[in-house]
């Protein structure tokens, strides 16, 4: 029994070491709010990033932002600026920082932090309205999903 437990732990550690994800608590933002290295240790997949941005239970970025390239998903919001042409003036590092925690770039922003698991007031268990324990919270997006979204945003260049 004991042995199995230990070897399972070793396996998990090993996997983690390979994928090398940076946990939400370990993320380093620079003075500008940007994040230098990939959170997952891997490149992003732009096609999946587009899915994450339009899925209600995931990024749901179009709830607040208009993105012409995502016009198949209806009713884009007006709470945030349009993201058309964003790659012309934002770097991958800046975009990663904004998606992970926009408040590090824009103080007091209404944009939610997608890679953060602590410091909330009355955090809930998803959209159930029930309480969640802080230690049980996962970030709204995974490290890889953040990278995927960043990869998609980098495709949004001026016409």
């Amino acid at each position, binding site marked *: 029994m004991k042995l199995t437990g230990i070897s399972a732990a070793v396996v998990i550690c090993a996997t983690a070491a390979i994928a090398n994800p940076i946990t939400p608590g370990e993320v380093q933002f620079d003075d500008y709010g940007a994040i230098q290295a990939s959170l997952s240790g891997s490149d992003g997949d732009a096609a999946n990033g587009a899915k994450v941005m339009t899925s209600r239970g995931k990024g749901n970025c179009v709830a607040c932002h208009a993105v012409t390239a995502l016009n198949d998903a209806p*009713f884009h919001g*007006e709470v945030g600026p349009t993201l058309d042409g964003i790659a012309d003036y934002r770097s991958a590092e800046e975009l990663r920082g904004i998606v992970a925690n926009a408040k590090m770039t824009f103080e007091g922003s*209404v944009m939610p932090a997608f890679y953060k698991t602590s410091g909330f*007031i009355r955090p809930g268990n998803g959209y159930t309205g029930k309480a969640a324990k802080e230690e049980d919270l996962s970030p709204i997006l995974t490290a890889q999903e953040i990278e995927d979204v960043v990869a998609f945003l980098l495709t949004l260049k001026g016409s």
Partner: protein
Amino acid sequence: MKNKALTAFAALAISAPMVFAGGADDDTLAIDGQEMISKAAAPAHMADTAVDTVISGWHFREDDTQAMQADTFDNPGMIAVDQAMDAWNTVEGSAEKSCATCHEGPESMTGVRAVYPKWNEEAGSVRTLAMQINDCRTNQMGADAYKYDSGPMAAMEALISVQSRGMPVNVAIDGPVAEVWEQGKELYYTRTGQLELSCANCHEDNYGNYIRADHLSQGQINGFPTYRLKNAKLNTVHGRFKGCVRDTRAETYSPGSAEFIALELYVASRGNGLSVEGPSVRN
């Protein structure tokens, strides 16, 4: 006359498909011909906000939803008013009384909706209309309390609201209620849940903007209870608050909780000057 022409023009502009016009429209709300104050100068206590005009949620809805509220025959919320009329006259509880035993007709409730929540001296606390209804039921009638955000409660609130239709909301915020009001204000600006959003983030900073398919209003409660096409029933103030807090990925407060009572007092006071419109119709 001038108003009519304006209304027709606004209706034309809006019937164009899905315009991202932003802001409230310029239509005039008249219910069965009685004009409502659906925009008013913001109350003095809002001087430190960017809001200078308070606006009924009616102005942010689509034309067909607006039309349903303007005609009581088309307003599905009025069915509940009829049901509550029966409840008003029904003897219930150990004291063998009905509402009518003490209050005669529901028109005796004229003006009541406009000033709630308000201080109750005997109880030494702020009372919402729902709490007052339940106080009558339990203490005067010896009947069971209605569940705080239930259908029968919403219906009784609707019947009482209709008696004040058109009267400006005039909720007191000073004197004995001041402390609870401050608590409500604090809750209004507290960013809850994993999305870290406050009521103000959506209803003060972003009213007029689209958030996905929904056109954000100021989150006023002068039109409550509200018949929502989405769930096809009358919705209470605390029911709506609960939904909005849940949508910030937060643990909600319970209907009837001290927090929601305080929040109701504060939000009601942000609508001081707007007409009582309940039951209103929303999507």
